[in-house]
């Protein structure tokens, strides 16, 4: 019982901190707009041949940018752990009778909720700037957004549990964020184009590849099928497997944290 309440309070704390951080919410609008307006305008013509006729580049790009937003937000959440360590609040949590598994899950689900909300914001931005996506598909996308967040947040929390200063985390974050982003097919289709095989081989090991692919399945419908990396259920299976592995690693990392 006390574990449930511990989990709830940890989750609630992350949510409250997110909602109160107005600057971050406002700035979170900026990056997706830049990608969806400027990048899309500049590169749309270059992809004309490689996309099916019934898909335009901005439609294709939107799920990728949602995935990118979740990735960046999730990794950013690690910073909160380092702040908590720096300013002592982590001690208050760690010495409480709540188990480390619960502490990890509470933080992880709380941070995932934040990442998930950011993903929804990008979806709405996409609609607002006139990208032709059916609003109803947001409903199907929700569970996938949550599923992607779990694993990625776990990466951020695991790395943060090993590192004690913000600078160090910033440096490592760059090594994780950008490769995962560029190698996920978020910006260009992995199938159909004449991509080097080393690139597609590496992308096949990237969990975000399957997250973004799953999002495209539900948001673009049958139009996406010709370019799919895997069928929807395979995508979901891979992401869920990745989540499971990361949760085990993350719990282990939190158990050894002092």
């Amino acid at each position, binding site marked *: *019982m*006390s574990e449930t*309440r*511990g989990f*709830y*309070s940890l989750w609630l*704390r992350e949510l*409250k*901190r997110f909602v*109160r*951080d107005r600057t971050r919410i406002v700035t979170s609008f900026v990056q997706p707009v830049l990608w969806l307006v400027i990048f899309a305008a500049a590169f749309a013509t270059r992809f004309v041949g490689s996309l099916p006729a019934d898909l335009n580049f901005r439609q294709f790009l939107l799920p990728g940018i949602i995935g990118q937003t979740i990735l960046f937000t999730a990794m950013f959440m690690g910073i909160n752990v380092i702040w*908590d360590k720096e*300013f*002592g*609040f982590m*001690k*208050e*949590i760690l*010495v*409480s*009778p*709540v188990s480390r598994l619960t502490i990890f899950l509470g933080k992880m689900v709380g941070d995932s909720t934040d990442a998930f909300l950011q993903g929804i914001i990008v979806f709405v931005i996409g609609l607002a700037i006139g990208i032709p996506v059916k609003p109803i598909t947001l409903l199907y996308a929700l569970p996938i957004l949550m599923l992607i967040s779990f694993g990625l947040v776990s990466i951020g929390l695991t790395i943060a549990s090993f590192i004690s200063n913000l600078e160090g985390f910033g440096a490592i974050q760059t090594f994780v964020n950008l490769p995962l982003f560029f190698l996920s097919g978020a910006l260009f289709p992995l199938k159909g184009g004449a991509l080097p095989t080393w690139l597609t081989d590496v992308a096949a090991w990237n969990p975000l590849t399957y997250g973004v692919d799953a999002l495209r399945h539900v948001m673009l419908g049958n139009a996406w099928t010709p370019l799919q990396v895997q069928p929807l259920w395979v995508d979901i299976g891979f992401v869920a497997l990745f989540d499971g592995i990361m949760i085990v690693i993350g719990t282990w990392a939190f158990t050894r944290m*002092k």
Partner: protein
Amino acid sequence: MFQLLEENEKMPHVIETIQLTKEYNSVKAVDNLNITVESGEIFALLGPNGAGKTTTISMLCTILKPTSGTATVNGFDIVKEPNNVRESIGIVFQDPSIDDRLTGRENLQMHANLYGVPASEQTDRINRILKLIELEDRADDLMRTYSGGMRRRLELGRGLIHYPKVLFLDEPTVGLDPQTRDHIWKYIRDLKEAHDITVVLTTHYMDEADRLSDRIAIMDYGKIVILDTPNKLKETLEGDVVVVRANNISALSELVTKWLGFNQKQVVDGALEITVRNGKVAMPRIMELATQNNVYVESILLREPNLEDVFLHYTGRNIREDTSRELHGLSAARRRQIK
């Protein structure tokens, strides 16, 4: 029946350490510690920074594992039953440990949830604690708007939300101004009375140990040097302190040792403090000796020994002399102030 009574009479100590030891790279930070703390007392571990106080408390709170030996807290073994120990104690750390992006009340609520306080009791307990630490009117403000003293008060109150039997305070007033320290001491005593708990605190402030605690253990290099009530400790010195100001302190210091045999001396703020058995007899002798050797005495006065003298007597050092260790304390104090 008789046996039952006898069992009751032998109430176990709230805390008992048995050869408790912690080594870092073969240096013994805590060295075979054997102490007992009784129910309802305020027990102080006094010593310079680096003496092993925080290490001791951390082991009792199950944050650190002892290298050897063990201890019981509320009857639970700190090595074998850490979870039971944690549920029955409250901890206020040396460094701040609040979330300043939450309100005071939210910090208390979160603590109550982490320690499994039933939801039906939470509001009531939190309101009562807020009243005790006099933060009712600021309870719903974000804690980043609180002053250092207010944050400290909230941390003290928070440690009591789950009704612990023992409250551990690690350097409760480091980095706070004198007036706030005075307040915090009052709150600690009030909280102790209101909740009928045992308090264990560490400090390197003499006045804090003297004014707050029922018993003091002076700790140095990981060992207890002496343990007694503040008054008994001062009485053990059996004598007076003669404070002399003169134009040549070092010469006078050598003279009193050479001719009068006074060995317990220290220089505090430019004055020579000599601990002697009978101050009234010693004073004219010191005056006479100074005059004969052309040392000009500016002032001379007699006072009762304080804890500082006790510390000097038992460790051979002044608690303030140790500058390398003092740096530790300063950086801790600074960390607190930055917040």
